[in-house]
């Protein structure tokens, strides 16, 4: 049982960045814009979040307050960076994949450059500890308390709150309905007076905010508050795209997909604790390939059935009908 607790406790902080970023990707693609720049936006958000933590870690602010404020800053950073994609892909009707790729290529280099300039290192190292041993009251609930409210991060709870909000926004609001219409049939949306460009800006911006926060949560929950220009976010942005596709662009399914990938990753890093796997004597490095192998497998198997928003990837042109 302890192993189960251990796996779940370690899986959740890993799952949350995937979940948030995949939800971000979902909003973007549901509005009709492929956001392949999630990886870059994550790192951008993470960098500014960490920069904030670095600057305030000496003050008397409590760690959870810092975490929340950092989240805000990471979200804003992600939003601003994603405007580049919106501008290129929506206003200028550039190829979305190429624009997104440009976002990805720029950031690791910039992070390295600025880290070398200002910290004389490959990234930002912070010493704030955001770890929560046990959340009062909730942590005392048998089983559930142990699974979800002990040895965890605030990011986990925030992540699930975002999931709930995302689900409601997408399905229960006017905004969600219009957003989805723009990703499926922008001409239909336009003909009933919906501003397709505006909705697409909104979709990409939400993905920017969520990816920025996701990147920051990655640095908090997976990297102990550090950011590194070499490893970046370890392909989590791309993994999140896989999670999104596996989740069929639907929030709850995306959550399960995120948990699945996070579980594989946690398992891979916990082999030494699980006697059965450890005794197999396979080099542990192979286990670390698991989430990435699973991605390829899952995408290959589900791609035929998968149903992306119909108009995604196609710049909206009013005059073409």
């Amino acid at each position, binding site marked *: 049982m302890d192993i189960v607790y251990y796996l779940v406790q370690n899986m959740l902080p890993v799952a949350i960045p995937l979940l948030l970023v995949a939800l971000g990707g979902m909003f973007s693609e549901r509005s009709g814009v492929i956001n392949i720049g999630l990886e870059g936006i994550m790192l951008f958000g993470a960098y500014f979040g960490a920069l904030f933590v670095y600057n305030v870690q000496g003050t008397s602010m409590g760690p959870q307050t810092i975490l929340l404020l950092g989240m805000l800053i990471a979200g804003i950073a992600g939003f601003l960076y994603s405007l580049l994609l919106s501008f290129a892909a929506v206003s200028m009707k550039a190829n979305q994949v190429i624009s997104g790729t440009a976002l990805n290529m720029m950031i690791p280099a910039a992070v390295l450059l600025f880290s070398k300039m200002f910290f004389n290192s490959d990234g930002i190292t912070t010493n704030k500890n955001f770890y929560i041993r046990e959340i009062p009251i909730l942590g005392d609930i048998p089983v559930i308390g142990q699974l979800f409210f002990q040895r965890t991060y605030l990011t986990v709870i925030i992540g699930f709150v975002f999931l709930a909000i995302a689900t409601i926004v997408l399905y229960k*609001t*006017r905004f969600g309905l219009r957003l989805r219409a723009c990703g*499926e049939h922008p001409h239909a949306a*336009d003909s009933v*007076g919906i501003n397709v460009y505006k909705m697409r800006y909104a979709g990409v911006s939400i993905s920017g905010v969520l990816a920025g926060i996701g990147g920051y949560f990655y640095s908090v929950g997976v990297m102990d508050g550090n950011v590194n220009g070499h490893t970046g976010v370890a392909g989590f942005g791309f993994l999140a795209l896989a999670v999104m596709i596996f989740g069929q662009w639907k929030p709850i399914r995306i959550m399960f997909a995120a948990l699945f990938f996070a579980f594989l990753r946690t398992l891979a890093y916990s082999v030494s604790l699980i006697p059965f796997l450890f005794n197999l004597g396979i080099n542990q490095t192979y286990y670390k390939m698991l989430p990435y192998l699973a991605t390829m497998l899952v995408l290959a198997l589900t791609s035929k059935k998968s*149903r992306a928003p119909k108009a995604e990837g196609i710049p909206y042109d009013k005059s073409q009908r």
Partner: protein
Amino acid sequence: MENYIVEMLNITKEFPGIIANDDITLKLKKGEIHALLGENGAGKSTLMSVLFGLYQAEKGIIKMNGKEVKINNPNDANALGIGMVHQHFKLVEVFTVLENIILGVEPNKMGFLQESEAKEKVLYLSEKYGLKVNPDALIEDISVGMQQRVEILKMLYRDNEILIFDEPTAVLTPQEIKELLKIMKDLANEGKSILFITHKLNEIMEVSDRCTVLRKGKYMGTVDVKDTTKEELSRMMVGRDITFTVEKEEAKPKDVVLSIKNMTVASKIHKNNAIRDVSFDVRAGEIVCLAGIDGNGQTEFVHALTGLEKLVSGSIKLCGKDISRSSIRQRSMGGMSHIPEDRHKHGLVLDYTLEENLVLQRYWQKQFQNNGFIKFGEVRKYAEDLIERFDIRSGQGPETITRSMSGGNQQKAIIAREIDKEHELLVAVQPTRGLDVGAIEYIHKQLVDRRDAGKAVLLISLELDEVMNVSDRILVIYEGEIVGELNPKETNVQELGLYMSGAKRNTSKEIKNEG
């Protein structure tokens, strides 16, 4: 002085290289069905787009109830009570009927959707106007006819008073057309004013009160439908007399060109075979028509015949050679020309220029290429020749992007390409679909020309008039089988209808003996 709800006065709208609307005036009375008639490319859709705010006119004004209004976008139009059913439906396929109807004008509290409220209104409207829909069904699961009812409900939900129907019957089955025309009459009786864009004269005669005719972007006049005839309308539309019957001499069938034996083709939709054990011949110098109601295997048959799909069993012989397993190119080189059912999907590369499309069947021939390099000069000369001979009209000649051309001229381009290449057999699948009377007449004439030039013509058609008029021999297809062979001179539309609906059939033995 009469009261008009909408007046479009002296509208002029230009596009690069073409004046789409030249000084056009259209006045709509309240509660009338006003038809807007014209050939493809006459400027009907442009005029309506101006009214709906999709385009802005360079000259002219729009008045509503006597007051001048500016319509800069569909929102303005909507605010003025103008709604439009577009020719290609603007529906989100994965949304429900209800979601599509409310999209853009969603009832909400603080941004949260209030669907139950909307549903009540939709159900009330659908009851009132006899527009049967299931609000919770997904668009992709319902028939085209029902999708159109959703489009109409969209306008009614917005309390639109002026309803524009852009060629609404082009996509419907005869049964659905009947229903639609009745709905339109009901709407007019309720006080809605309807603008009905079409080029089908029968429909105009049946439902409309008045008719405005456009020709090549110019205003030809407005007439009261009860004081006019089909012939007069078509003369106004085309500028000359149109013959509704095809003039041709007795067919003189010669050698068998196409011989199909026991053809069976799988279906993509269901498990049964779409075409079962079909055999027949087509001879040089005759037009054989495969008639039937849509969806009885015609598409699969044509795909198997032309090589787009594989046969399950059976054989196809073209000029004595077995082509059952030949590639599409081999079939084409072997003498088969094909005017496909879906001209956008299988007929043209829409974003290529006209000249590129015209040379698609022969760009590899020595005449047009040298070691893999295309001789563009030759292509241009050839294209110009075809454009001249087949009277293909377009904005920029050979350099026109085919997507921007009108349906009739797109079809002419395909026909030019397919007829001008070496062929013994012409397979024409619904060649007149969606075209106006002028273009239909032209295409029928081309088919008869081919026959008289000693070629075999296989026509696949859903239009009873076309079947009766053009063919020399009718084969009726029903649920993937040939259920009857008829002589158009000895049969009538009623009998043909019985065969097509499966109510009557010759025994298969008879057919084989005759063939």
